[in-house]
């Protein structure tokens, strides 16, 4: 049991450190393709943390859907937009917004950290990890059946919306050049 707890701590320490570094790189990197790759690293390290917590199926979904589908979508969009210019500095033109963003982030983290550290979490009634795939299926397809079905409608709507929005209009010129 002790070795198991130590393993979880080690996994969390290593994956958490990688996660934060890659996240910072993904946010502040000017090159969007590098940012997308950093996002993959962040998502994979989060999947490792989920594995450490004992949620194998969630880790698999995280890798498959997030690191797979979503980031591939990002990469394709970056390739399509490779000739569209971002502004040179990479951040907003006003320095005030830079300052505001940093201040918001620091204040937000301070507030959350204070709430987390000072607040008292209710004691777990039965600490354990019911990660049985049967339990997940039961929750997803029985207890949360309606949200599950609504999600499928949402995905269909998003699919149609994405096609309509990104479609080339016949009246428009091909990418206006300048």
């Amino acid at each position, binding site marked *: 049991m002790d070795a198991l707890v130590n393993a979880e*701590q080690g996994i*969390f320490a290593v994956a*958490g450190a990688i*996660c934060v570094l890659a*996240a910072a790189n993904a*946010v502040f990197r000017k090159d*969007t393709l590098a940012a997308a790759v950093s*996002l993959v690293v962040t*998502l994979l390290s*989060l999947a490792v*943390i989920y594995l450490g*917590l*004992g949620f194998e199926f*969630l880790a698999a*979904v995280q890798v498959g*859907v*997030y690191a797979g589908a*979503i980031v591939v*979508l*990002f990469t394709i*969009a*970056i390739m*399509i*937009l490779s000739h*569209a*210019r971002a*502004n040179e500095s*990479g*951040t*907003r*033109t006003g320095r005030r917004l830079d300052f*505001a*963003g*940093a201040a918001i*982030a620091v204040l937000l*983290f301070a507030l*959350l*950290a204070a709430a*987390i*550290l000072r607040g008292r*979490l209710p004691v*777990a009634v*039965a*600490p354990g990890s*019911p990660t049985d795939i049967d*339990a*997940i299926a039961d*929750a*997803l397809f029985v207890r*949360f059946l309606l*949200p599950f079905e609504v*999600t499928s409608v949402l995905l269909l709507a*998003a*699919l149609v*919306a*994405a*096609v309509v*929005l*990104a479609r080339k209009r016949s009246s*428009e010129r091909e990418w206006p050049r300048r």
Partner: protein
Amino acid sequence: MPTTAYLLLGALLFALGAAGVVMRANALSMLVSVELMLNAVNLTFVAAAKRFGELDGVIVAFFVIAVAAAEVAVGLAIVIDVARRHVSVDVDRASDLSG
């Protein structure tokens, strides 16, 4: 590992994502930052699920992932449309609707 460690990591990731949304002018970087914030919330839900031995947090994480997929599809379509009109993915240039 105490639950607070996971919550603190989630808070840190969320703050990083919030900073990115405010500071970055590149619409693609803003979307990456939003993904980061969604993942931070997911980590918080999963940590709570672990602590209480209930699966509900994990189920919410599944739904968040599905919603994130929909959000990225629509968001990237909008970015591509904006780039087609302005030849730029700079959000400060997409100001047609500002009075």
